[in-house]
C-alpha cells in the first residue's frame, strides 16, 4: 500500500466520522477547547494570576464571565490557561503512550514466542494495578513538574496501548496480502511498516484519542488530590480543588472548571468511539 492511499484512507476516515452527528459535535467541541487554549493569551480578558482584592468571590457577571476566586483572580482567564496545560499534557502523554505502546505491541506480535509471552504478561501485571493508584505513587516519588507528569502518565497508558497494537497487528498478519508479501520474499520489517502499519492506523488513532482523554482525567485527579500541577499555576484539576475547598463560598468556582473537564473528556471519548464505530463493518447498515 502506498502512502497516498493511506492518506486518502485517513481523510476518508475523518469525513465519515464528521458525517455522524456525535462525531460532528465532538470534533467541534475539541476544536473549540483546543483553540481557546491555544489563543488563551489573546482571548482571556485578565492575567490569570492577577489579584484583585476588591473583587473576591465575585459572582459570574459583567467583566468576570465565570466570576472570581478567593484572591479575586478572574476564573474565565484561569480556566482558559488551565486548558493550555491540559492540551500540552494530552498531546505529550498520548504521544509517549503511543510510541512506547506501539513498539511494545509490535515487537510482541512480530517475534512471538517467549518474548511475546514476557511482554504480554508484563502488560497483564500492569493492568491488574488500578491506574490512578500507580500514578499517585509514581508522582509522589518523582515530583510534579509538567514533563515528569506527562512522562509518567504516558508510560502508565502504554501497556493497554501495547495490547491493542499487538492484537491489531496479529489480525492483519493473518490476512492474504501479508501471506502474499511473505511469499514474494518481502522482508518482515518492511511488511510490518509498509503494509501492516497503515492498516492498523485507524485503530491506533482511536486509541491515541482515548489516551488523550485518560491523560486529562489522570492529570485532573492528581491535581485535585494535590499531587499534580501546583497552585498558583492554573490547571483544571487544581481549579476544581480550589473550588472544592471554597465550596460554601461560591458554587461557580467548582462548576466552570468541572464543565470544561467534562466537555473535553466526553468529546475525546466520543470521538474515539465514533472512529472505532466507522471502522466496524457491521455499522454500515
Amino acid at each position: 500500500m502506498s502512502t497516498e492511499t493511506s492518506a486518502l484512507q485517513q481523510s476518508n476516515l475523518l469525513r465519515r466520522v464528521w458525517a455522524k452527528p456525535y462525531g460532528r459535535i465532538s470534533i467541534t467541541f475539541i476544536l473549540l477547547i483546543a483553540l481557546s487554549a491555544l489563543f488563551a493569551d489573546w482571548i482571556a480578558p485578565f492575567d490569570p494570576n492577577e489579584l484583585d482584592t476588591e473583587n473576591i468571590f465575585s459572582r459570574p457577571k459583567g467583566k468576570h464571565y465565570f466570576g472570581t476566586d478567593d484572591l479575586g483572580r478572574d476564573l474565565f482567564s484561569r480556566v482558559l490557561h488551565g486548558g493550555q496545560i491540559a492540551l500540552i499534557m494530552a498531546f505529550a502523554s498520548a504521544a509517549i503512550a503511543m510510541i512506547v505502546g506501539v513498539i511494545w505491541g509490535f515487537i510482541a506480535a512480530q517475534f512471538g514466542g517467549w518474548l511475546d509471552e514476557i511482554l504480554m504478561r508484563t502488560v497483564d501485571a500492569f493492568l491488574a494495578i488500578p491506574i490512578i493508584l500507580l500514578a499517585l505513587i509514581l508522582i509522589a516519588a518523582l515530583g510534579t513538574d509538567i514533563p515528569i507528569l506527562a512522562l509518567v502518565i504516558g508510560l502508565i497508558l502504554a501497556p493497554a496501548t501495547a495490547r491493542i497494537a499487538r492484537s491489531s497487528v496479529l489480525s492483519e498478519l493473518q490476512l492474504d496480502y501479508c501471506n502474499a508479501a511473505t511469499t514474494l520474499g518481502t522482508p518482515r520489517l518492511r511488511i510490518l511498516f509498509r503494509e501492516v502499519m497503515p492498516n492498523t492506523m485507524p485503530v491506533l488513532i482511536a486509541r491515541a484519542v482515548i489516551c488523550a482523554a485518560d491523560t486529562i482525567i489522570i492529570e485532573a485527579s492528581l491535581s485535585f488530590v494535590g499531587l499534580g500541577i501546583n497552585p498558583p499555576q492554573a490547571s483544571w484539576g487544581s481549579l476544581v480543588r480550589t473550588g472544592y475547598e471554597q465550596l460554601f463560598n461560591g458554587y461557580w468556582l467548582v462548576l466552570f472548571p468541572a464543565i470544561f473537564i467534562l466537555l473535553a473528556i466526553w468529546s475525546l471519548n466520543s470521538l474515539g468511539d465514533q472512529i472505532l464505530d466507522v471502522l466496524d463493518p457491521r455499522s454500515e447498515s
Partner: protein
Amino acid sequence: MRRLGTSVTMLFTASLLIFVVLRVLPGDPVTILLGPGNRGIGEEDIQEYRAKMGLDKPLLVQYFIWFSNFLRGDMGNSLFSNEPVRNMFSGHIMPTVQLTLAAIVLAIVFAISLALVGAIWPRSLVDRVVTFIASLGMAVPTFITAIILLLTFGIFWPILPTRGYIPFGEDPIGNLKLLTMPAITLAFAAMAPILRMLRASLAEASSSPWTRTAEGKGLLWNRIVLKHVFPNALIPSLTFVGITFGRMLGGAVLIEFIFAWPGIGTMMVDAIFKRDYAVLQATILFAAIASITVNFIVDLAYGFVDPRLRLKA
C-alpha cells in the same frame, strides 16, 4: 486449573512489578526514616539500620522475604509510626468494603434497569437518554460526580450530610445517610462500562434468530426481552463486573478522600503525603490481589453459568 495458573502468574508478576517500581523510586527508606540531615547519625548507624531492616540483602532476596511475609499476613510496619501495616489495614478496611459493596450492588441494579428500558423501547427517546447516560458515565471523572452531588444535595438542596463517617453499629441511619453520596458516586462510575456492555449484548441478542422465532409466535415484545433476550445477554456482561472492579478500587481512593470516608483510600492518600512506602507498597499490592481475585472468581462463575465456556482440562 489453567485459569488458576494464569491468576497466580499474574499475581507474581504484578507483585514483582510493584516491588521493583517502588524500589527504583528516589527516596531511600532509611534516609526518610531517620530524617534528612539528622545530627549524630553516622554512616555506621545507617548501615546498621539497613542490616536490621534487611535492606542490605540482594534485591531478589528482599523481594521474596517481602512477598512471602505479605502472603502470611505480615505486611511490614509503617515507616512513620512503626505501627504494623496490618493493624492499619484492619482499622480501615470495613468502610471501604461497605462502600465498594454498596456501590457494586447499586451499579448492577442501575445498569440492568437502564439497559432493559433501552431494549424494550429501542430507538425511542428513552433509549437515547440511556445511551447518553452511558457515554456520560464513561467520561465523568469520579471526583467531578462527587462534587456535582455535593453541590446538589449538600448546598442547593441540603438533605444529606456532606462528609464524614459513623460506624454502622453505632448509628445505622446516620451511617447510611453518609454512605449515600459516596456510594452513588462510585456506582455511577462503575455502572457505565457494565451498561455499555449489557446494551451491546442486548442488541445482539435482540437480532438473533430465536428472538425472531419468539416474535413470530406472537409473544409480546417486553415479554420476549425479559424472558428470552435478557438472560442470554447477561452472561457476557458478567466479565465486565470483574474488569470494572479495578477501576472501582482506583475511584474509591478519590471518593473516600473527598467525602472524608476513613477507608483504605484515605489511608493511602495520607501515606502518599508522608511518603510512607511500606504502607503504599502494601496498599497497592492489596489492590492488585483484590482485582486479580475478583477477576478469577468472575471467570469461574462464567464457566458455571455457561458450560460451553469451561476450559477442557
